[in-house]
């Protein structure tokens, strides 16, 4: 396959960026999308040009590093798939492919297609944990958790923090990401002691980071590579409302 690529190039965070056109030849349909970019980068390097910076690591769809906005969609056209698991057979010879970084003011561009998602880390730091020190835990079987609850908590916990939800959302909202963690811990008995403060603090941090608000469009869940459900956002709303109405926190 021969392809035309329109790639966002931006030297660093402060600089202005622009779309640049490249051509790649003899792309195998069995290649992953990132392997196709590897080919481009090898070509660029041989030609003495700066290769395209992009985030990736495990290349098996679990680390959440890869974050490309391909042809107007998070992680490209295939449903339930991260960029690294997207294969070139989903494209056709002669296609023009537009590749952009996640766009959100809370995710500034580091370089080219690499963005800074540390806002997600700061939201987790605001309360996305159970406060237990190492060593004091009771026996694992001391707290029975109904299988159905454990399974639902697990489904929420599968979020890989890639940011596709923010990128796909018209409002650049991080609600799906935040809701996954909040509902995981709200469902589990371990999360109960900090249930109210957790949701209050995480939402405060989310707002501070400059993400947009949720307007229940559903793009996030539709583009989520691991299928985090919109139900989590409803749970988050409920948790927030209940916490604000009943917590002793006057701040």
């Amino acid at each position, binding site marked *: 396959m021969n392809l035309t690529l329109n790639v966002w190039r931006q030297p*660093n*965070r402060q600089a202005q960026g622009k779309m640049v056109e490249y051509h790649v030849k003899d792309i195998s*349909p*069995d*290649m*992953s999308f*990132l*392997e196709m970019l*590897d080919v481009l*980068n*090898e070509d660029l*390097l*041989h030609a*003495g040009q*700066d*290769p395209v*910076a992009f985030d*990736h*690591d*495990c*290349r*098996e*769809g*679990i*680390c959440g*590093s890869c974050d490309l906005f391909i042809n107007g969609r998070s992680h490209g056209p295939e449903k339930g*798939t991260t960029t690294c*698991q997207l*294969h070139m057979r989903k494209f056709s010879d002669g296609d023009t492919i537009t590749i952009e970084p996640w766009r959100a003011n809370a995710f500034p561009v*580091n*370089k080219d297609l*690499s963005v*800074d*998602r*540390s806002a*997600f*880390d700061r939201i*987790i*730091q605001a309360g*996305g*944990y*159970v406060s*237990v020190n*190492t*060593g004091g*835990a*009771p*026996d*694992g*079987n001391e707290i*029975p*958790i*109904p*299988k159905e609850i*454990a399974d639902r908590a*697990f489904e929420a*916990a*599968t979020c890989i*923090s890639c940011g596709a939800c923010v990128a796909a959302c018209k409002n650049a909202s991080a609600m799906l990401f935040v809701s996954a963690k909040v509902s995981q811990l709200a469902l589990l008995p*371990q999360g109960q002691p900090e249930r109210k403060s957790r949701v209050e603090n995480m939402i405060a941090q989310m707002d501070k980071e400059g993400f947009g608000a949720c307007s229940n469009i559903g793009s996030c869940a539709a583009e989520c590579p691991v299928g985090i459900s919109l139900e989590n956002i409803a749970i988050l709303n409920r948790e927030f409302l209940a916490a604000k109405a009943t917590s002793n926190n006057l701040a």
Partner: protein
Amino acid sequence: MLLDSKIPEGPLAEKWEKHKFNVKLVNPANKRKYDIIVVGTGLAGASAAASLAELGYNVKAFTYHDSPRRAHSIAAQGGINAAKNYQNDGDSVFRLFYDTIKGGDYRAREANVYRLAQVSVNIIDQCVAQGVPFAREYGGLLANRSFGGAQVSRTFYARGQTGQQLLLGAYSALSRQIAYGKVKMYTRSEMLDVVVIDGQARGIVTRNLITGEIETHAAHAVVLATGGYGNVFYLSTNAKYCNVTAAWRAHKKGAYFANPCFTQIHPTCIPVSGDYQSKLTLMSESLRNDGRVWVPKTVEMAERVRQGQIKPQDIAEDDRDYFLERKYPAFGNLVPRDVASRNAKLMCDEGRGVGSTGLAVYLDFSEIIKRTGAEAVSQKYGNLFAMYEKITDEDPYKQPMRIYPAVHYTMGGLWVDYNLQTTVPGLYATGECNFSDHGANRLGASALMQGLADGYFVIPYTIGDYLASTPPKPVSTDHPAFAESKAYVQARTERLLSINGTRTPDQFHKALGHIMWEYCGMARNAEGLRHAKAEIQKLRSEFWSDVKIVGSGEEMNQALEKAGRVADFLELGELMVDDALNRNESCGGHFREEYQTPEGEALRNDDEYAYVAAWEYQGENQPEKLNKEELTFENVKLTQRSYK
């Protein structure tokens, strides 16, 4: 230097308890006067950083990722072992210890492995308390499954992503300490040197991967939790960024490197499909429970398959060779990883491999699909089948999967004593980064266990012993050793940038990987290893005269990062070859063709090689010095493994 493993005296079961009592403690009020650097934030690093911060130490944690949650621990699928005996099937700490020692082909330290088995139970409790959503039974209690190398069900799991869930647990504990200000987190920072002052590790030099700035950080102790070096083979199941750089720089500063040739090759990976391939994907070991491994009986038939003239599903039963079932009637398709891998390679070497490259064997599910129906198979393996189809565009319900072994894990690593301290005082290594507990072969579901054991339950005790004897006065980066290290790192970066040759870092990496895989992979022999050594030396000198990188060091420059890592792999590769050449026996993942039983099984030499080979750096392009730590086995009897 004499290798002192500092194994406590006394009966095996009491060693750790006694040791915990004997180690010196740091007064709670003094803990905040000590700074500890933790490099790497996977399971071993994040758990260590969080636990040390909880104790009151000031921790600086470093990762080259954009977030501490992305380390490759996240990709572990199967589960984590623990001797809980929740299933009432006869498990015990001793049994887990025994299975691990035996699985490691008797090349691990008894005392360490026993401690690992002891603390395994605490890991599960800790993770449950953190909210890790382990699989549960309908009654609400924790579920277990069985795994390779064990006859009991002791593996705890969270569907196919146990690694991610455990890492998120450790990450959440770490995040909490970051929020408290007890951990200062440095993301996108790659460690490029250890600073040693008066023989003690006192800090590190890092490169900020966004700005390119070279930074120095001081501390009273340094913990390396930087993972394994499987990527020396270029193609492996490791993540793309996985590298040996941190461990290698520590090695060059005096930390011995132990058993570097011990690498684990996992039998069930999706085969390479072309030269462009950047990474290999694991298909869970559990598939071998129901899949049957075979190749065509004759080379001619295999040739026709490779040409695409005949489809595997059309090959008659009589024309198939179910080689594992044939050779190992007792264990059949469930032989351990090293045996399964080696036999697949043997078939391909005979010319009976399949797929367009001839480097694959079939893993066939047609029988179970016929027996139980596609629906039942989908319930069990649906996600794996879907992943296989996504990558290969072949439907495993209709035609057999193609699989081939791939590098998966490295048992070797920095030599550490019982306290997890390397040969450099104040420098510790945890998780896959150390040579630790798995001997010559790691059992499934044990990597997660070891990483968390080291981080949550070992290092928090043992590091105190060292710090208690170190005065709590601040360490400053003003010491000339920091400037010296920084200058070294800068000079190396400039040298890499100034070469401006013709070949990219990836090309060198692929060439190195090819040498390693050919001659230091699943089967090795003296002649091949000697050839490989010369090839690696040649490649290394070519690298330093012909590598091409563009741009500068003062910006985000992924080619530069890559080049630095490849340069270190080029040195490590030679040491692996040396180690493999030195070990004139076959054990676990190390198979020397000269040393095998008449049936072609690994032949250990316990009289001469029951030791840890700890290599000591002697300077640029100098042969390394071998130091031996003899392994004594007082609690298990050394036997030959047999799976017939």
